[in-house]
């Protein structure tokens, strides 16, 4: 029974990674930018919930406010930090460095405003207890269900709607998409908004699961979500989900084996292995580099 709960735990934390990984994967798919600041959007979402709940706002408002605020934050970040570089066809290294800059900026800004210590989040959702092996797993199940729903919704959005088609076109060839009358600028903004909103959903689940937030929480979380996105095949929506769940399982497995001190190393070892043997990821399509 211990193993079953550990597996469920792994899937639960994997679902949170998945929500971040989906955003990573989407943004990378459209603008080929590793948005380092994406993990920190989760932190922004967490603190928004903290502030709103602290002002005695109802739960639904805190959740909606957090999602809205993160979407706006994502758009602002794109406009202020990336837009100029994306439009000028700046070298990729410059974009990546800017993204790192944004990430450090968000972390330190939160540290200045809220202090370095972690903040407690009051209990958010009261769910009927579902017991597996003496442990209440209802929150874990909630995480998994929400993540799966979000993934399905995103899949529908990208594959069936008009804006989804525009996103796919921009991802394929931004120049040609512009010639076909697609406003790539607004597509990119939309992508950032959706990605950040997904991260905010992740923030809601994170706050509900761990009941505390801190300014630096986005760093490692974002990195692991990125690893998950690469593992599953960056640019692929089901891939990001699959990668994140495998990552969560691998983490809980290292706990089961009593090697929790090596947990982070396991995650990055997975990344290194997949990059060496299947650089396109589990479900990704291998793209030949153009000469």
């Amino acid at each position, binding site marked *: 029974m211990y193993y079953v709960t550990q597996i469920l735990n792994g899937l639960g934390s994997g679902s949170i990674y998945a929500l971040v990984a989906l955003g990573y994967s989407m943004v990378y798919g459209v603008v080929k930018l*590793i948005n380092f600041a994406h993990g920190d959007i989760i932190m922004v979402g967490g603190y928004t919930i903290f502030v709103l709940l602290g002002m005695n706002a109802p739960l639904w408002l805190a959740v909606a406010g957090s999602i809205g605020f993160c979407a706006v934050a994502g758009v602002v970040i794109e406009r202020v*930090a990336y837009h*100029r*570089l994306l439009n000028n066809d*700046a*070298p*990729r*290294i*410059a*974009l*990546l*460095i*800017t993204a*790192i*800059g*944004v*990430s*450090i*900026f968000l*972390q*330190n*800004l939160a*540290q*200045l405003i809220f202090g370095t210590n972690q903040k407690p989040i009051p209990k958010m959702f009261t769910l009927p207890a579902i017991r597996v092996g003496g442990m209440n797993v209802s929150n874990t199940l909630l995480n998994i269900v929400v993540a799966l729903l979000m993934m399905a919704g995103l899949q529908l959005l990208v594959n069936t709607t008009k804006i989804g088609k525009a996103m796919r076109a921009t991802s394929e060839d931004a120049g040609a998409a512009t010639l076909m009358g697609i406003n790539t600028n607004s597509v990119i903004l939309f992508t950032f908004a959706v990605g950040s909103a997904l991260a905010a959903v992740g923030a809601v689940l994170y706050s509900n699961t761990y009941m505390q937030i801190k300014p630096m929480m986005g*760093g490692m979380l974002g*990195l692991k979500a*990125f*690893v998950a996105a*690469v593992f599953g095949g960056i640019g692929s929506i089901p891939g990001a989900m699959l990668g994140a769940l495998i990552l969560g399982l691998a983490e809980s497995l290292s706990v089961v084996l009593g090697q929790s*001190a*090596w947990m*982070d*190393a396991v995650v*990055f*070892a997975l*990344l*290194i292995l997949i*990059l*060496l043997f299947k*650089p396109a990821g589990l479900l990704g399509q291998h793209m030949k580099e153009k*000469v």
Partner: protein
Amino acid sequence: MLKKQSKRRRRDVASLVTLAVVLVVYLVMQQLINAGIINAFLRGIINLACINVVAAVSLNMVTGLLGQLVLGHAGFMLVGAYASALFTKSVGWDLSLSLFPSLLIGGLVAAVTGLLVAIPALRLRGDYLAIITLGFGEIIRVFAYNLPFTGGPGGLSGIGTLTSRTNPAGMFNYLFPIAAFVIFFSYTFGTSRSGRAVLAIREDEIAAESSGINTTYYKLLAFVLSAFFVGIAGGMYAHQIGIIAPGKFDFNRSVEILMMVVLGGMGSITGAVISATALTALPELLRSLGKVISNIPVLADILGNFEQYRMLLYSILLICVMLFRPKGLLGRAEIRILPIYDRWRNWRHNKKAAAGKGGGAT
């Protein structure tokens, strides 16, 4: 007309002048430290600046010359620091005897680690290479936390240092010449046959390969050299500070080194030197400025607690540099002696000409 000088002669003159300037700076600073005019506070900053210069110049070898982003340099620095500190602690020789070999050992162990990382990592490039080096950097840190001989999260303490009351310039005497040598080496490497091969790979890897350059070999070479020198920087750091812990070599440290390279201009050695020195000195100087102007409450508070704002400022700087001057402050240019020398010759020539005309020219 100005007399033409042969290229070789001009180069010799420039090298000699540079050497003389470095020697004079070294000797003057050494004397000032020994005389106590440069106090312990300033001395610490200068020593740290030397260490950061070595780290920045070494990262410049991959990020500037090879054009690849590496985010795990703190990991190699950690390896160098631990190897070097463990060596001096375990052999128990007098530190003036064991420091130099320990730095070499730190560098070599870091280089071997770099090679082990590079063989798989350099199959990737661009974003993926950055992420995979970041991953390796984190793994190295997890090792430092968990291995039996690294002292866990507390790290190693009681590492000897050469600076003492009777010999205040003890560490400086090692750190400054090493920094000067690393700059010199990096410069000669950049202009050597191998260095030009590395530059060619940066410009266009496929074109370089089709011109017969063994790209794998030269990429490995740049990466391993870079790891070697940052390992030495780690050893220098361990013996300057006296305490090392895994937390000191985290992602933020990698970013800090990257910041020094990016700000100065990726590919510019003098740029890296200047920005490494400035970024080391600035936080400390601003903090002491905050103490001086304690009668202006808000400003003094900000400056006095500068450590809190440092990374915030760095991140804004990083974003602004990338947005408005994506090549860094100096770009790929170097500050050289020769153009200054030429300007001086021109100036002297013009003055002579003016004097010859009897001061008629205005």
